[in-house]
């Protein structure tokens, strides 16, 4: 037996009402909602577009994950496509591509953590010691800028400057009697190029959060250190660095939680024929196999794998960050 919507509503209204005939009549949650909706109707109206966005564009696609268990065909659609269980999971994990994707993703991510992560900290520390405000502001303005330019522009400039034929760097190398370097097509240089680009684009922007942490250090600590006769260097070691230590640890932990996210646009733009073996990561694979070759179900499996591992990493990283007594992501 199924209840109609109106029957259900009446039932829900009737039940608590029967129970709470005592001195303090307790409202049912339906009634509470009715009151709230009436009182704050404009608030709910204002929130509606935003909430609808999250519902439609973040929750509805979860449904699409069922594709991973189907032999999905766009012509048959979701309802009529054949269910195949874990067939595509087996295929994906058996495929040698899988290990390749995993290796490339890990390598690019770890290179980023080792070489990229410390740079904003060092630059922020240096900027913090600058006493000439105009100079400080100028450097900040300059190093934040690349963050706002698209990956297409950054990669494009990279092609223009490092290109083999007409790139100015290679022209300079030849001018000084050196051998041209194939910056863009040499697989051995590819990961280094990605890391260098990331540093160039985002390291300056990364200083903001450390500068904020530095600004939050109590200035009395510095005064006390100066009275004790501490040099600038000693102040940095004993006041500044301990002051931002927790920020560094938390950001590092949270960064480790995002090992699977290696920057899709950048890699997609940089990956050309000769470097394919070192450039393919989960996201580019999903695009190539799924969108370009139309293997939706198989590509959904690859994407799902990445998302699940990412979820586990982020949740554990967040737990860890909280253990250090910080707020974490949530």
């Amino acid at each position, binding site marked *: 037996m199924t209840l109609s919507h109106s029957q259900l509503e009446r039932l829900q209204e009737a039940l608590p009402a029967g129970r709470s005939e005592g001195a303090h009549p307790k409202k049912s949650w339906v009634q509470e909602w009715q009151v709230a909706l009436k009182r704050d109707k404009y608030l709910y109206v204002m929130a509606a577009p935003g909430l609808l966005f999250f519902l439609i*564009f973040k929750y509805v*696609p979860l449904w699409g994950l069922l*594709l991973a268990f189907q032999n999905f065909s766009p012509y048959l659609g979701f309802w009529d496509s054949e269910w195949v269980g874990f067939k595509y999971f087996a295929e994906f994990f058996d495929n040698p591509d899988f290990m390749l994707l995993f290796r490339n993703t890990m390598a690019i991510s770890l290179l980023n953590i080792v070489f990229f992560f410390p740079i904003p900290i060092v630059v922020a520390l240096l900027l913090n010691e600058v006493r000439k405000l105009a100079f400080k502001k100028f450097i900040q303005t300059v190093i934040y800028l690349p963050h706002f330019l698209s990956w297409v522009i950054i990669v494009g400039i990279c092609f223009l400057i490092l290109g083999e034929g007409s790139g100015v760097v290679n022209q300079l190398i030849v001018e000084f009697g050196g051998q041209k370097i194939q910056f863009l097509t040499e697989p051995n240089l590819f990961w280094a190029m990605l890391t260098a680009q990331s540093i160039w684009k985002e390291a300056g922007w990364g200083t*903001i959060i450390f500068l904020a942490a530095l600004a939050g250090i109590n200035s009395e600590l510095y005064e006390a250190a*100066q009275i004790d006769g501490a040099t*600038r260097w000693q102040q940095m070691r004993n006041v500044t660095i301990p002051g931002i230590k927790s920020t560094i640890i938390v950001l590092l932990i949270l960064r480790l939680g995002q090992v699977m996210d290696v920057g899709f646009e950048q890699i997609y733009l940089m990956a050309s024929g000769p470097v394919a073996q070192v450039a393919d990561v989960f996201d580019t694979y999903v695009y190539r196999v799924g*969108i370009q070759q139309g293997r*939706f179900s198989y590509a959904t499996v690859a994407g799902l794998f990445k998302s699940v591992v990412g979820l586990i990493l982020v949740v554990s990283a967040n737990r860890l960050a909280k253990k250090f007594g910080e707020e974490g992501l949530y």
Partner: protein
Amino acid sequence: MDKSMGAKIFNALNYTVLTIVGLVTLLPFIYVVIISFADPTEYLTKSLVLIPEKWSLSAYEYIFSTNAFVHAMGVSGFLAVFGTLVSLIVTSALAYVLSRKRLKGKKFFLVAILMTMLFNPGMIPNYLLVDSLGLMDSIWALILPALTSAWYVFLMKNFYQEIPDELEEAAKMDGCSDIGVFFRIMLPISVSALAAFGLFYAVAYWNTYFSGVLYINRDSLRPLQVLLQMLLISASQMADPSMAAMLESERTVPPQVIKMAAVVLSSLPIVMVYPFLQKYFVKGMMVGSVKG
């Protein structure tokens, strides 16, 4: 104290290192800007041009004589203005509502939005969603999937929470509705936050690239970054026919110089706007991201 030898050396070293950092960031851009004004014949005849002897606007003239580039700038410009406006309204309205303590269901909404930051269904389900909503090859495919962001909603919510409740109560006493309070009280006093997030949205819309690749096939809706990619990156490797044609035709200006001019034109709006908004976004980033 600051006059000691060590401090002097440290200062000199510090300023030198930071200057180098600044130069390394800036030099590639400066080079691209300079070459974009290089005289075509000089660039073609010399093997290496660092600073041209003769200057010329021919690359820019060439770009503005082609339809494709101007049109793509129009598409991205429209996205940056219209998209930003819609995104700001949706984001700030949602953030404001979620900042009201009395709101019933607030916790549920906040958790539901937070969850979306943790798990991303991935490219294929998103693609099929946009497809089944019938948004393919429409400007909405470039706006709606990026309409707001959970992260910005949380940051803005923190911002609105810091505004004292008394302000809202006073306005209500004067007969303002919730919508009136939002538009007449809250938005005007949150100009700095709106400026910061407006800049972030405008930049994101101007830089729209991959959703253009995924969702747009019509040339007339092609965003600037997609055109740039064809011009700068794929034309040099895969030879996209339409782009190759754009670069080949006439050939009075070397493609390299045209490309540099294209880079300059596409970054110009950002370079021009952002220094004025810098003070806002630095503050905006810090709201809620670092505890005192």
